[in-house]
């Protein structure tokens, strides 16, 4: 046992995370290759663009979910926030508000919801599962209430063309993933807040006793998640050209599945930025591929479930061996 720290031991941790991500990425490529061979339509420009657009929604909420999972929490309200924000931004724009103002205001709603979750978790001491479950139900109800179940239609081209656009051959929607992922990476891995997020997920008490504002750290995690969901709601409204109260139904489970497949642990202190993106890409590919192959959608769900178990099992093995 030496006190020397060799380059080998230093990067061992980093290397192992990279290995999992690499494996996932390879599985993804393999799937793409298989689908290109098995169907005529997969490897078309239209289809790949479509795929990237769909991936971007799930990837962004999965990144937000990862932030929360790293603190050993969970955010079940994500799908409901997507629905709420898609409706709110549509209503604001329709009422004549300039698009940028509407977007900012909608994102602010995300901040408020995230802060509420943070408050319940820290000051009231409620388990995040319960708090976000409550928000999930009530926000969805609220959204249905304000729309009376009707879609909000008639959105201007200026807004809806964003989702259809491309930049340098890549859909703008996918670029938004990078807009979220790059600052997210710096926040999570290159800032003290990131270190605190991991530490809180590992041992909240130890962090508190080190003189750190644990309350603020938890607020940050939930606000990031809610704002990611609010952003996705705006993007979906742009894509669909309408604001619908039922948007995002079930997406909280997608965000959790993507995050878990991407390597985040429900027990906290494990996770990164690229994992949830790859996880979302895998799930979307599976879903799209199944459609193209005319596989019963019920099989997709079974496969998703098996995939989650398989990946998490492999991850446990990897961690035990350390």
């Amino acid at each position, binding site marked *: *046992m*030496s*006190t*020397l*720290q*060799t380059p080998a*031991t*230093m*990067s*061992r*941790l*980093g290397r192992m995370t990279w290995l999992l991500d690499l494996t996932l990425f390879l599985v993804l490529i393999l799937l793409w290759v298989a689908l290109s061979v098995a169907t005529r339509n997969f490897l078309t420009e239209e289809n790949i663009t479509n795929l990237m657009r769909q991936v971007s929604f799930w990837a962004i909420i999965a990144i937000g979910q990862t932030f929360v999972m790293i603190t050993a929490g969970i955010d079940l309200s994500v799908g409901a926030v997507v629905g709420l924000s898609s409706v709110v931004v549509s209503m604001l724009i329709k009422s004549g508000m300039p698009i940028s103002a509407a977007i900012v205001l909608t994102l602010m709603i995300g901040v408020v919801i995230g802060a509420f979750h943070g408050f319940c978790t820290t000051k009231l001491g409620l388990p995040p599962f319960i708090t976000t479950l409550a928000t999930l139900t009530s926000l969805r109800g609220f959204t249905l209430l304000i729309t009376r179940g009707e879609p909000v239609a008639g959105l201007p081209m200026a807004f809806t063309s964003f989702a259809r656009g491309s930049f340098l051959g890549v859909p703008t929607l996918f670029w938004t993933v990078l807009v979220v992922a790059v600052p997210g990476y*710096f*926040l999570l891995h*290159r*800032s*003290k*807040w*990131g*270190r*605190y997020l*991991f*530490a809180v997920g*590992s*041992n909240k*008490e*130890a*962090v*508190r*006793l*080190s*003189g*750190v*504002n644990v309350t603020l750290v938890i607020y940050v995690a939930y606000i990031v998640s809610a704002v990611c969901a609010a952003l996705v709601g705006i993007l979906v409204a742009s894509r669909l050209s309408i604001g619908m109260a039922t948007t995002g139904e079930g997406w909280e489970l997608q965000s959790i599945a993507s995050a878990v497949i991407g390597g985040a642990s429900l027990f906290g*202190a494990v996770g990164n930025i690229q994992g949830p993106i790859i996880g979302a890409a895998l799930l979307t590919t599976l879903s799209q591929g199944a459609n193209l192959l005319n596989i019963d959608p019920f099989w997709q769900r079974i496969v998703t479930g098996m995939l989650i178990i398989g990946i998490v099992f492999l991850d446990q093995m990897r961690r035990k061996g*350390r």
Partner: protein
Amino acid sequence: MNEPLFTLRGLSKVYPGTTAPKSLDLELRKGEVHAIAGENGAGKSTLIKILTGAVQKTTGSLVWDGTPVEFAGPLDALKLGIAAIHQEVVLCPHLSVAANLYLGHEETNFGMMRRRKMLADGRALLKRVGFEIDASRRLGDLTIGQQQLVATARAASGDTRLIIFDEPTAYLTRSETDQLFKLIRELNARGVTIVYISHRMEEILELADRASVMRDGSLISTHQVKGVEAEPLTSRLVKDMVAREVADVHFKAEVPIGEELIRVEGLSGAGFEDISLTVRRGEIVGLYGLIGSGRSEFVETLFGRRKRTAGSVTWCGTPLRIRSERDAVKAGIALLPESRRDQGLCLNLPVRLNLNLASYPSISLGGLLRRGDERKNANAQVKALSIRTSGIEANASSLSGGNQQKIVLGKWLIPGADLFIVDEPTVGVDVGAKSEIYKLFAKLLEEGAGIILISSYLPEVYDLADKLHVFRKGRLAASDVPSATSHEAILAAAIGA
């Protein structure tokens, strides 16, 4: 008594980065009390895990009562009659003491538990082993020491032939220790073999027939203890453990005492009342008392973790309101908590992160972390404190108890502090690491810091403290004990005799 019960030959366990134990040969005889001493990281914990079947050996042979055995899991060892009492209690805190005593072998009536009988049997068992514990109480409501006694009672029932104790007296009061020793002697008289792992020389001398020393994974020596003179045996044992002369076990530096750092007046809170004391620069103020006497509650309130109900704190002459841990840290107070596992460390995160946990604001520029400084800080502490780890990226959980404690200390050495509150800093820490920690205290004092030392080990706090206060049931039983006072008198104050 010279017949072998359990013979270990060439026992090794290879882990990535280290091999401990290493090619170990040991013979445990029937009916003996065999002490094992050694520094943390020497491989003692792994040895216990192999002997109880919790961990698989890599090479070597185990011969039990003349027959070679292989343990596929803990159940195999249990069936042979091997039991272990660990430092961390492995029982169910939400269940009653009686339920825990019979966990796994409850008596049932067509599948339904016979609760009343279990309670009565539990009471009888505890009476028989001589422990004054109420069998109907919830295990989690007992002190850690009492919980360990319940674990011991559990092992003492049945057809146990070998019991391994891992630092059993760390959390026990004097009277509980006496109860335990009485039980050990009784078990021994019944022919049960006892393996007793401890750093406390006086206990080894009192209990053991023979003692072995482990160092760096190998078994260094085995000595006859019973019937042998205390000196030079003790020196021999210590020397074998650290392979160097340890001149002063309780290293006390002569440091000039400076101005007043903190003055506490009439502080009261949950679990303690009306505590007043001062700490000056260069001074160690010792708080002695039995476990549960309110010292930890007092310092946690001082540190802002708990709410105070009365009293005031003056820091360097000006009044200080501490409402949270952040206030305390900002003022220049550091706390090394009693339970490093629960409160001091993020076990599943790297050493690097744990060491920097109190320093991140100082190595961040704008929003960004200076990762080079983060690594530099961590490496510097690992070197300065001789922390044995396979690297700063290793998880804190992979380190031994003594090295984990060094991390908790190192965390505060990076930002520095004026007042260090250390709560039971050397529990579960071996002689070598202990003296390193004491030398560190001396260095802190030389640099003008003050220390509040909480210890339930009287020899330690007696030798180290400049000022000694005795706590009993949440109050000061004795304040600023004169240096000529005897150990017995101090103990009497602590137990209220």
